């Protein structure tokens, strides 16, 4: 009996990647369906901006399509996509600082579209939505460090490399982000 909840096997993914690399868009669509949620999650949490997250997710998959022939399968496809997305988000942030200044500030009302994106029937939905809103309201650099460390599980040194910061600055930004988050959640 086929289990609809079963996780796709790595062989299955490898076959889809091979097909997509030969130009099969339907195969790539299946890869998109499997990994787009994770890519969109990192994009929206790192940017705090639904439209920007949409653009970056779009760009991540277009870039993946262009580079499918370079995917060697050493890591899972989802991990490869995740790396592409993080690189894109950080690259976009570096090249477009003016845009960064426009994202939601701590005084702004949360983006309704963004909040709606997190709606879910989970029992702790209220806490989760509050937390997502608080993350979106963090200053950009603190948000990036916080998401990479506390959500994605990166180490201080890895974040320092990615963001071209001293490890001490990463720690300071992380501590600041947590203080701001707790302040917003306790309001």
């Amino acid at each position, binding site marked *: 009996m086929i289990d609809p909840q079963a996780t796709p096997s790595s062989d299955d993914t490898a076959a889809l990647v091979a097909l997509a690399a030969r130009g099969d*868009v339907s195969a790539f669509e299946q890869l998109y369906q499997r990994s787009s949620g994770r890519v*969109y999650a990192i994009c929206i*949490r790192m940017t705090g901006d639904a439209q920007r997250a949409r653009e970056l997710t779009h760009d991540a*998959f277009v870039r993946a399509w262009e580079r499918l022939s370079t995917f060697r399968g050493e890591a899972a496809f989802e991990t490869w996509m995740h790396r592409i997305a993080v690189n894109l988000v950080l690259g976009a942030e570096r090249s477009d600082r003016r845009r960064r200044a426009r994202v939601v500030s701590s005084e702004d009302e949360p983006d309704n579209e963004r909040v709606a994106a997190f709606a879910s029937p989970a029992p702790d939905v209220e806490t989760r939505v509050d937390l997502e809103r608080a993350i979106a309201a963090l200053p950009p650099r603190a948000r990036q460090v916080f998401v990479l460390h*506390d959500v994605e599980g990166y180490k201080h040194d890895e974040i320092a490399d990615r963001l071209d910061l001293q490890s001490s600055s990463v*720690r300071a930004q992380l501590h600041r982000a*947590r203080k701001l988050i707790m302040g917003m959640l306790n309001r």
Partner: protein
Amino acid sequence: MTTHLTWETLNDLVDDVLSPAAKAAAETHARDCASCATSLAELRATVAVTHDLPESVTPPEDLWHDVRATIEAGKVAHLPLGSVPAHARGFWVTPGRLAAAAVMLVAVTASLTGIVMTSQPATQTIAQAPLAVSVSWQASERVFQANVLALREQLEALHDHLAPETLVKVERALATIDLAIAEGREALLRDPANAALSELVASNYRQKIELLRRVTQLASS
């Protein structure tokens, strides 16, 4: 009286990055100090809740459509221009066949456009006010237009290599495709979410690019 743990120390304790001695001292203090124990518990709870956020967030439903449109446009853009070997050119590459194919292409384009445009529900064809098409569609269209422009420039440079009557027929075919694109775009502005319409306009662009590519190929052979 013992000094309370700093915010930095509390965080380093949660992240387990303190030296063994500093960690032991901090833990000992937290056991004896209600204030620091509370702060530590609150911090740990916040970090735990954050860590438990879902790994995945559902992206907008129509995002795949935009991704697909862009990669389809890219597939056209990456086709080799003017470098296809003669044996691979097949049926197309003679002036007479090219002109005949152009006429056929135009007929198919016009028919498809007619079918899709007339199959829209009446409520959709009565526009309230023009709406902006999606940013992603605009990006895809820019890619199509850049391809058309590049091929147009190549064709201009090879203009003298084609017979005048072939050029006339090709230009006529291109004008008809342009009309189909213009009609499709107009309909798309009224109904930006209509996937069939955006696919139709993309298809018309692809046909235009294909025709230009083959004419350029012919002229450079």
